């Protein structure tokens, strides 16, 4: 950033950070995205659907590239393609049994086709290469008020839906057979979750880029699950880690010329490694149930 100079006067740094509206919007967007990504990502990791999440992210790429080619905001491309792809993956899911491994072939097919379309749209657009970089590795520049509002509306909707189905969703994720016997509609919940995951991936992609969505979707929950097996605590730690790495990533990216995706991912990676080291120590906090 031109004009931004990091100093040891932290107050001044914070003042510099929020000096421009685009940066304020970047923090707003990042905060919304981190909370949603943490909560949905936690369930994704428990459900072992990271491959589906990754595919949804890659589907976002042609969506965004196509939207840019058509002259609309990339955000709409992300939402439309990720949402639609979630429904396709849900339809590909085998009817019987909860075998996550069986769905992988179908998801792989969707993923390859999505990437191919993305590169087609990019070459049709012939735009400057920087645009592609932003789509793949993230950008926090030029986030408008309207975009923040869109992120907020979609994010709150996803969180409310997750709150409503949280308990049966956890039941269906951990123990699908017993959940089904208890009258939980495992299949419908799995479709709903994929749609929520698609929307979340679309949100995260707009900050971290499509290739780095896992920085917020997988790394914070993986970190939290290393630290505690208690679902409620783990969920709170996940959201905390996601917020922290997003804020830190934004701040550092502001003072350096390097892309934000790198910093968010690096901080999340550091958190994961730190949690892993912490867990290797024999210290075990006895849970007070």
């Amino acid at each position, binding site marked *: 950033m031109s004009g931004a100079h990091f100093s040891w006067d932290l107050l001044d740094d914070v003042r510099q950070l929020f000096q421009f509206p685009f940066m304020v919007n970047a923090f707003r967007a990042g905060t919304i995205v981190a909370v949603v990504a943490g909560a949905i990502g936690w369930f994704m990791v428990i459900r072992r659907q990271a491959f589906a999440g990754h595919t949804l992210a890659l589907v976002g790429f042609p969506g965004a590239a196509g939207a840019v080619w058509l002259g609309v905001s990339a955000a709409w491309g992300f939402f439309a393609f990720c949402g639609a792809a979630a429904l396709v993956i849900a339809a590909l899911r085998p009817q019987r049994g909860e075998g996550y491994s069986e769905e992988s072939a179908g998801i792989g097919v969707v993923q390859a086709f999505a990437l191919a379309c993305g590169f087609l749209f990019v070459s049709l657009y012939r735009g400057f290469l920087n645009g592609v970089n932003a789509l793949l590795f993230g950008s926090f520049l030029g986030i408008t008020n309207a975009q923040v509002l869109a992120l907020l509306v979609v994010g709150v909707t996803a969180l409310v839906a997750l709150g409503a189905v949280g308990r049966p969703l956890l039941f269906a994720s*951990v123990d699908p057979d017993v959940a089904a016997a208890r009258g939980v509609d495992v299949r419908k919940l799995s479709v709903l979750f994929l749609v929520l995951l698609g929307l979340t991936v679309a949100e995260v992609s707009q900050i971290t880029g499509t290739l780095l969505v896992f920085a917020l979707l997988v790394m914070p929950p993986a970190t939290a699950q290393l630290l*505690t097996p208690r679902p409620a605590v783990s969920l709170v730690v996940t959201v905390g880690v996601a917020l922290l790495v997003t804020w830190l990533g934004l701040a550092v990216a502001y003072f350096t010329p390097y892309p934000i995706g790198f910093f968010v991912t690096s901080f999340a990676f550091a958190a994961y490694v730190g949690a892993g080291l912490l867990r290797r120590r024999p210290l075990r906090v006895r849970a007070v149930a």
Partner: protein
Amino acid sequence: MKTALHTDAIEARDAAVRIGGRLIWEHLDLSIGSGQFVAVLGPNGAGKSTLVNTVLGLLPLAAGALSVLGTDPGTRNAEIGYLPQRRSFDAGLRVRGVDVVRLGLDGDKWGLPRPGRRRNEEARRRVAEVIDLVDAAAYADRPVGEVSGGEQQRILIAQALVRRPVLLLLDEPLDSLDLPNQAAVAALVARICRTEGVTVVMVAHDVNPILPYLDHVVYLGRGGAVSGSPADVITSETLTRLFGTPIEVLQAADGRLVVVGQPEPPAYHVDRHQHP
């Protein structure tokens, strides 16, 4: 011994089940009194899990009649504790045993549990109580993927018991356990059956670990279905006829019966239950 004064927990008359046109079993007559410990035995593919599914109302009968807890199957499932054929938990699953039991209590309710509420406290107490009942308190706070197979099985039995069911359906809970654990879990289930007055229907491959506790035996085999007291059913000639292979029932020095020559549990279980 439970007497005929009790109403029947499960009663079947000339029942038959077909799946995709294929006859699984027929002419099944059953009368299981409440509070009894019942074993469902038979070779692979005989329809043992199918019987559990019909009791749960998940599969319709092709013929005959079946009543569960005095009414149609499926209507009183809330009072049935069910432990499906298992699948152990993934070693990486970072969810505690208490959470698995708690999900069995109110995991089907919408929304999230709110801490501090009285109902939440009661739920906690019930979960702790049932974990004590199966002697799982020592490891219930550890991630369920990290505890042993026998310990997971106790957690799952606690989960099946947490709603105070009157009928417990256990589908091969002794499968994949080593011999000491088979004996320990069998004794635990028998104890719960006696002290809590729960009717237990256990699907099993090997009758020996549960033989001392049984009130009633249902044998599903190629030669038809037979149901009755262990003394009537577990004889060399009945079993030989049912399995179509020579089987001997011997009496050990301490008076216990031992079944010899029944088909060994298979080494692989992969697709056995995709064609029930």
